[in-house]
């Protein structure tokens, strides 16, 4: 029952991505996650060069060019304040030089004519120029886009309900990433977060990824890189939940399995119907 539950938790997002986008796209977006897994193995073996294993991910997806140096920076400040960490951070900066050029057109900083026109129209509604300039200025265009992405990436509904059942978020495939009852394990995992032996790794990776992904014009599909760290939190919560199983917990697990099974049926059905 435990193994089946874990399989249900871990397979939904990869399958959704695969069915929706095809194999080649799936590999393209899944591969950076492989380097996170490699990095986790190095971290678990207390290898201090673990942030360097993330560098290749920025070459596969240029949108992730900030991710390795950010992780290295967080490692330097919060995890391991050593000269080696400093050198690793400096080495990882190479991804910025490589990825920066192609970043701007696919980021929140791309030119947005409509947004600028909207600013001008709204600015004319204000009674004073200074008030108009305070709230209707060019930096607010980028800030609003960043805030939108940041809020969406930190929204649990994004991962467990495809945002909301009747909501279609534009620029996004609205994939369901985890069976919806997994949110319970996720919340438990958050509560016991620090008991996970890799909590520093997970926190650094998630923080860096969310910051980086929020800078993209569309983070959809790129956010699959969050699959591993989020799964670790969920599995921590699942592990806690399944300790000392009582009748109520068994019933919940039964319901979880049933609903999870139905979600997979829905996924397969929608995929076959072409309405995923």
């Amino acid at each position, binding site marked *: 029952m435990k193994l089946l539950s874990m399989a249900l938790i871990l397979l939904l997002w990869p399958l959704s991505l695969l069915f929706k986008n095809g194999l080649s796209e799936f590999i393209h977006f899944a591969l950076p996650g492989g380097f996170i897994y490699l990095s986790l193995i190095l971290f678990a073996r207390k290898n201090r060069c673990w942030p360097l294993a993330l560098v290749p991910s920025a070459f596969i997806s240029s949108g992730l060019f900030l991710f390795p140096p950010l992780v290295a920076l967080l490692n330097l400040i919060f995890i391991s304040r050593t000269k080696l960490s400093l050198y690793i951070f400096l080495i990882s900066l190479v991804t910025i030089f490589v990825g920066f050029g192609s970043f701007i057109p696919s980021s929140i900083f791309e030119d947005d004519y409509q947004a600028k026109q909207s600013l001008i129209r709204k600015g004319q509604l204000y009674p004073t120029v200074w008030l108009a300039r305070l709230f209707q200025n060019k930096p607010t265009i980028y800030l609003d886009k960043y805030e939108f992405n*940041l809020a969406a990436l930190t929204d*649990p509904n994004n991962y467990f309900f495809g945002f909301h059942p009747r909501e279609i978020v534009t620029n996004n495939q609205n994939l369901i990433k985890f069976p919806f*009852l997994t949110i319970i394990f996720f919340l438990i995992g958050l509560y016991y977060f620090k008991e996970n032996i890799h909590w520093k790794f997970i926190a650094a990776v998630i923080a860096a990824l969310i910051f980086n992904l929020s800078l993209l014009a569309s983070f959809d599909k790129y956010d699959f890189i969050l699959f591993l760290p989020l799964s670790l939190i969920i599995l921590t919560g699942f592990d806690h939940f399944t300790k000392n199983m009582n009748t109520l917990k068994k019933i919940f697990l039964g319901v979880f399995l049933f609903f999870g099974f139905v979600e997979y049926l829905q996924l397969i059905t*929608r995929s076959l119907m072409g309405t995923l």
Partner: protein
Amino acid sequence: MKVYIPIVAIILVFILGFIIRFHQLGDAPAGLYIDEAALGYNAFSIFKTGMDEFGKPWPLVFRSVGDFKAPVYTYLIVPLIPFFDLSMFTARLPSAIFSVLTLPLLYFLISMLTDKYKIQLSLMAALLLALSPWHTLFGRTAYESNVALFFYLLGIYLFYWGLKKPYFLFFSAAIFSISILTYHSERIIVPITLGVLFWRFKKQLLLSKRYLILAFLLGVVVLLPSLTILGTPGFLARASGLNIFSHQRQVPAGFIDALETPVAGLINSNLFLSSREFLSLYFSYFSPRYMFDLGDYGPRSSFPELATFYFWQFPFYIIGLFFIFKESSLKELRFLTIALLLITPIPAAITRDPYSTTRALPLVIPQIILISLGVIKVFSFLQPKIRMIGFIILSLVIIHSALHLYSSAFVLNESLRAKEWNWGLEQVAEFSKVSQNIPVIVDNSRGEPYIQLLFFLKYEPYFYQKENFEVPLSQYYTNMERNKNKKIGNITTRTIDFEKDIFVDQYLISDPLAISEGQAKEHALTKVFEVKDSRGEVFFNGFRTNPAEKCRVYPNTKQCL
């Protein structure tokens, strides 16, 4: 000296909240939404005749536009009418008053429940609530949910007083009952809250069994009139129409149409789909997207470019959430905040709309407490020298937030949301007043303008009750049929009938969709007035028919022969 600082601070917060809620109270939003007009006019009707717009004496719920409004807000407006007459200011005044009173109430509630960070937390929460876009919007408009929130919070405050002095339980019970009569959401959250509070303090409460029983009976007595219509369609109108478990109007979210497989029943099972929809809606009230970025999608439930909270409050919310679970020294405040956090989204989560800030308004309280706690905790970690810099930065951020609120609520909202607030009907009413002898048809294909017309014309309720019929009064709470055609003196609100109306000498008033420029030309209509907003967008057109000209151009038309 130090003793007076908190008192001066809370007075300043109160003044700030007062200014934010009372500034241009009757003028912004510029329009008067249908529900606001209904509350105001029914209060006017009660004041003048003792009956509502349909002639029902002292209703227990107000039928209104078929939504059966809870009664308290309407009855609160009644005594204001002799002083302020029927106006937008009067209709919104109870909301503003109770919104401002919620600020010191929150301060005193938090002060009572915790010793740790007592003054700082109370003041910060009151300040953030004063500036809250969520609380401000409903404090400036005629929404029952805002007044219900005050009574709900007061009921909780008096309950805690009742633990020390049992006779306060009577007041608590009465106030909780009034909150139930004020807004529909409280019908759900009050019983759950009372159940939770009773479970937590049952040993203490059972020591004052006599007071407890009498308080319960008093609460029931206050509710008794409403309990007599408990099972009627009128009482349950809102609940049955909007809840996600009722699939009369809409299939559950995620339903796959035209599915013919052996497992179709499983894939489209109500249990699975409804459970998922409920949980999704429930968790949407904790979604950073909605809280700090999008706000309520409803154009009247949010200000433009402003969510329910300011984005800078996001990290403090996370920090507050962390500490409310970890820090047991917050004692009773911790318990109440978590309880309110879990309970208050429930009524909203069982209705279809994701993130309905009207129905989940009580949630603003625990979330403001969490943000305040986050701010206080951050400051507590700062070194004294840096704390001063932090205080200056926070002050600047708060000033910026106040200006942002002004920008969204008083500048952008007036222009960008005027249509949603039904702006323009006051001008239509003014025109109709002038054209006394000539019939006026006001198109109602996209709304029910009759109630705003009644409101702005201050039409004599006695005549309106006589001229219009909806359902027999004996079926007031049970018969859900509606008559959308209304007669207000020389004005009739109904859809325009181009086969008949253009052959009668009268005025036709509508939005540009109902009568286009082409139709006006075809039917020989003469435009006599226009209602336009500051951006030049036309809201209403008024045309005079010209039957003679119509027949001259099209003499073979049946009506001309």
